[in-house]
């Protein structure tokens, strides 16, 4: 089956580790700092980005031969903006509290360089199936980092995971304190920096 060929597999697998959009290409940092205070936020954000990326890649790949070169960026951007607005509306209708917590950052997926980048660099040249997988891979690669960062930030910053208390009460009674820095943006920078370093050690991309 074509979808499971080596090339397709690497379309999904590469962005997860070897060519991760955040860890290696250092794209999409803004939202990665903002929505990683709690794991549940990161998970919803991941779902939203995976949806937008795979759909925008698919749609653009599907109509790529009709897209006039001169207005291709406008067309890509309107498709992406349409999908993001759709997701935002869905969240407001079915997950109101989450949509309030994510505030503007759902809308800002539009400006996430990963989405635009994959649309123009990949979906414009590749088949529907491959573009879909590439979108999904990049979305998951981005989301994976988000979830890892939020795991450390929520655990160290609030003592909870996915909203559940994991640091036991007796630890607090014996002088343990949550690391307030982790809740703030600098905490995200530090965790993200460590992850980028670790990733470069493990993945060893050729041009670094």
């Amino acid at each position, binding site marked *: 089956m074509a979808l499971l060929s080596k090339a397709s597999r690497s379309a999904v697998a590469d962005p997860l580790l070897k060519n991760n959009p955040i860890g290696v290409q250092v794209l999409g940092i803004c939202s990665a700092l*903002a929505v990683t205070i709690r794991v549940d936020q990161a998970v919803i954000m991941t779902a939203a980005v995976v949806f937008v990326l795979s759909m925008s890649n698919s749609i653009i790949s599907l109509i790529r031969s*009709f*897209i*006039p*070169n*001169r*207005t291709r960026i*406008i*067309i890509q951007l*309107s*498709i992406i*903006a*349409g999908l993001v*607005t*759709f997701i935002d*509306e*869905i969240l*407001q*209708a*079915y997950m*109101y509290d989450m949509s*309030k917590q994510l*505030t*503007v950052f759902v809308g800002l997926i539009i400006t996430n360089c990963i989405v635009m980048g994959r649309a123009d660099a990949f979906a414009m040249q590749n088949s529907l199936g491959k573009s879909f997988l590439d979108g999904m891979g990049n979305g998951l690669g981005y989301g994976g980092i988000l979830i890892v960062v939020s795991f450390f930030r929520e655990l160290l910053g609030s003592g909870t995971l996915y*909203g559940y208390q994991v640091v036991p009460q007796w630890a607090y009674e014996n002088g343990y304190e949550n690391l307030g820095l982790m809740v*703030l*943006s600098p905490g995200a920078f530090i965790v993200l920096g460590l992850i980028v370093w670790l990733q470069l050690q493990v993945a060893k991309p050729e041009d670094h």
Partner: protein
Amino acid sequence: MRSNTYVLLFTALVTVILGFLLSVTYSQLKELQEENVAVDMRKNILRSLDIREEEGEIWTNETVQYLYETFIRTTILDSDGRDVSDVTIEMVDAEVDTTYFPLFTKVVNGDIEGYAIPVIGRGLWSTLYGYLALEPDGITVKGIQFYKHKETPGLGGEVEKDWFTGNFIGKRVTDEEGQLVSIQVLRGKVDPGSSEAYHQVDGISGATVTSKGVTNFLMDDLKKYEPFFQKIRKDTAEEIVWRY
């Protein structure tokens, strides 16, 4: 190279299709979204009046509805603080109305336990919407909640956090003579030794404009209800103990 006509038509077509799909989505979800907003407003009225979720408890829309109907009485006041019974809450838009003012009273087993009023005003980027609740004495703050704003998360956005709203509880909106002084959001921390500390709360660092905005519109909104609260204070005056 494609012709200009093709480029224009294709781009227009994509835009029209997307616009159509989005408007369908919006009209389908509108009802649900509006219900969410209404429930959220009620939840915040309840919270400002100190009816809140236990740790880890999540209220469903039905729970909010039930609690609201059980404990909250809605009245509409005119500019003299009189109850106008022929105006309903649906007819009043607290943001713009200057003749009628909604009042949410918490009643438990027939006893009044507090009053909540809508507080609305400009911050830095956006209009903030919230509820300020006073104790039955009409002087002491029972709670404050903000439910809608577009301030910077982490800076002005902190207005909705418990550390900020919690500082309002127990503060007083009038001075010793009974003049309205409202609540002042400071730049920096409150000096507990200051003679003004009774109506001051800690500011949000990095959000001076939002803090100032809150100070201003709390005063403006409390003024609107002053005729009503003056009457309340007269009725309960002997119960108030002044402490410094």
